[in-house]
């Protein structure tokens, strides 16, 4: 029943266009994508839309500390989500924190992708000893939980945004390397690759024009989910006190700051950054989940 008469297809349907149409068919996923984009935009615009710059000490007053959500300061400023122990506006701190979280997540994923894809393709392309060596390294990396590796790395390296990104890159690359290699090995056996070999096209062209584009789909899914995972991991590391420095707090560090006040019932310092963090991770995961459904060939037709 899959044979559709060609005459009936209205327009030229590129795989990309078909993909976009398929994606938009799921309203929850579409909403999630919109939310992710809005969050990213908000974080980029933080310096302009936040009520205050939470790192400018001249703008914050210690007398405003631990105000409940909706309370006003003595000079009449409204703190919609309350303030922290230094009198910072939580809403502003969260917008800046979101920026930091998204930046660390995206940057580490991008670097992990770059390293992982190159090594994965190299392994699949050359095979033999190089393949074995790279895959041993991947196995070694993957046989230990990411959190532990990152924790130890940061314990050795010390705090810092760059170091967190480095640590998260190091825990991610192996996933990409394994995925790319696994896919390349499967796709390499497909007949269109043999056809390209038969046409005496050079190996580099076969790899980059034929093999790699067909290995990208699962990579996109994993990369999406990994951005969410990296954001979560960064928050966890910051909570444990080995992540970003206090001068540039991420959402995780904001939650961590509020942890001290939980037992006294001052919920807002942890609750709101946590909700934003959850919302961010959740929407990215929803996008990734739908991408997975769309790109999974086994559930198609």
């Amino acid at each position, binding site marked *: 029943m899959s044979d559709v008469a060609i005459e009936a297809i209205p327009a030229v349907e590129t795989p990309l266009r078909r993909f976009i149409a398929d994606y938009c068919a799921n309203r929850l996923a579409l909403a999630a994508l919109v939310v992710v984009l809005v969050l990213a935009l908000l974080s980029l615009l933080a310096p302009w839309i936040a009520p205050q710059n939470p790192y400018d000490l001249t703008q914050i007053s210690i007398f405003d500390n631990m105000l409940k959500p909706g309370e006003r300061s003595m000079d009449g400023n409204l703190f919609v989500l309350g303030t922290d122990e230094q009198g910072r506006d939580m809403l502003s701190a969260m917008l800046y924190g979101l920026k930091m979280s998204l930046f660390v997540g995206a940057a580490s994923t991008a670097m992990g992708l770059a390293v992982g894809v190159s090594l994965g393709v190299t392994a699949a392309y050359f095979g033999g000893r190089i393949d074995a060596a790279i895959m041993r390294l991947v196995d*070694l990396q993957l046989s230990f939980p990411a*959190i532990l590796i990152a924790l130890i790395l940061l314990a050795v390296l010390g705090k810092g945004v760059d170091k967190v990104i480095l640590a998260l890159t190091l825990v991610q690359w192996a996933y990409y390397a394994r995925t790319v290699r696994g896919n390349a090995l499967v796709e390499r056996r497909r007949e269109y690759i043999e056809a390209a070999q038969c046409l005496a096209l050079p190996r580099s062209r076969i790899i980059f024009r034929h093999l790699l584009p067909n290995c990208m789909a699962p990579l996109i899914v994993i990369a999406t989910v990994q951005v969410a995972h990296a954001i979560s991991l960064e928050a966890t590391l910051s909570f444990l006190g080995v992540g970003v420095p206090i001068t540039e707090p991420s959402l995780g560090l904001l939650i961590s700051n509020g942890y001290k006040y939980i037992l006294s019932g001052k919920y807002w310092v942890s609750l709101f950054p946590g909700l934003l*963090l959850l919302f961010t991770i959740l929407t990215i995961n929803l996008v990734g989940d739908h991408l997975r459904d769309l790109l999974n060939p086994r559930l198609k037709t």
Partner: protein
Amino acid sequence: MFAFVLRRIGQSAFVVLAMAALVFLSVYAIGNPIDILLAPDADQRERDEAIARLGLDKPVWVQFLTFLGNLAHGDLGKSFVFGSDAVSLILGRLPATLELAIVALVLATFIGIPLGMLAGLRSNTWVGRTVMTGSIIGFSLPNFWFGIMMILLFAVELQWLPSGGRGPTGKLFGLEFSLLNPAGWPNLVMPALTLAVYKVSLVTRLAYAGTREALLQEYVRFARAKGLSQTRIVGVHVLKNILIPIVTVLGLELGSMIAFAVVTETVFAWPGMGKLLIDSIARLDRPVIVAYLMIVVGLFTFINLLVDILYSTLDPRVRLADAGS
């Protein structure tokens, strides 16, 4: 089969050795090990002793062999903070962490598999969609924040459960377990749930994907054509097929649970080895960090090995392919 086990043991040995080398390089070879391994207030006598013991006047490879030798004897130095042997310090905390991890694992298995199978069987109804969306939420919950919120709700606001600590325990073979003492159960609830929530989602998703894929298989259709009841098809044909990957993943996740317990134990002040690690990192108690690393490396490698062997015995295709020669 024998060759397979042998191969896996060889690989495990390689992993342990590689990690030992990494730890050795990062702690011993970079910087001055004396500064790293001795408390800052150590006097000259202690420094000389340590140099002699660690053989720091000898070539690097001799030092590495010494390190390995000490490792084999379970000697990784003394904790600056507690003054006692680092290895036994961590081993003393191991039961608390293991208990937490195993309870969470059991929760994940017995909630996740039925939930995932249910969603898989009803994938196009609101039940399936709700379960799967729920699992994404569980997947996305930042672990530590979830713990904090549980404390806020159940310990602070409702005051149903203690906010942290281990509570009373019962003894078995000289080791302490909360499970053995009902008075300790309230303390276990929140940490175990926090640790389990991510794994429940993971297992649910695995069971869901496995069930959906199994249902599309021809053998399920054939089983229906034989006139089997839905219960038998789901309970035997589908379950047995999806169990193999799930058991594998669960085994591997036990390792990651032990690691992730670092977070949960910190939130709930649970006196396990994870909490000890975080405290040691904060206090720069390096011998404990090194000991923790090496113990966890050994533990993971052992679990991974077990899981691989278990997998090969579970799946007849793998088991017999290797034994067929």
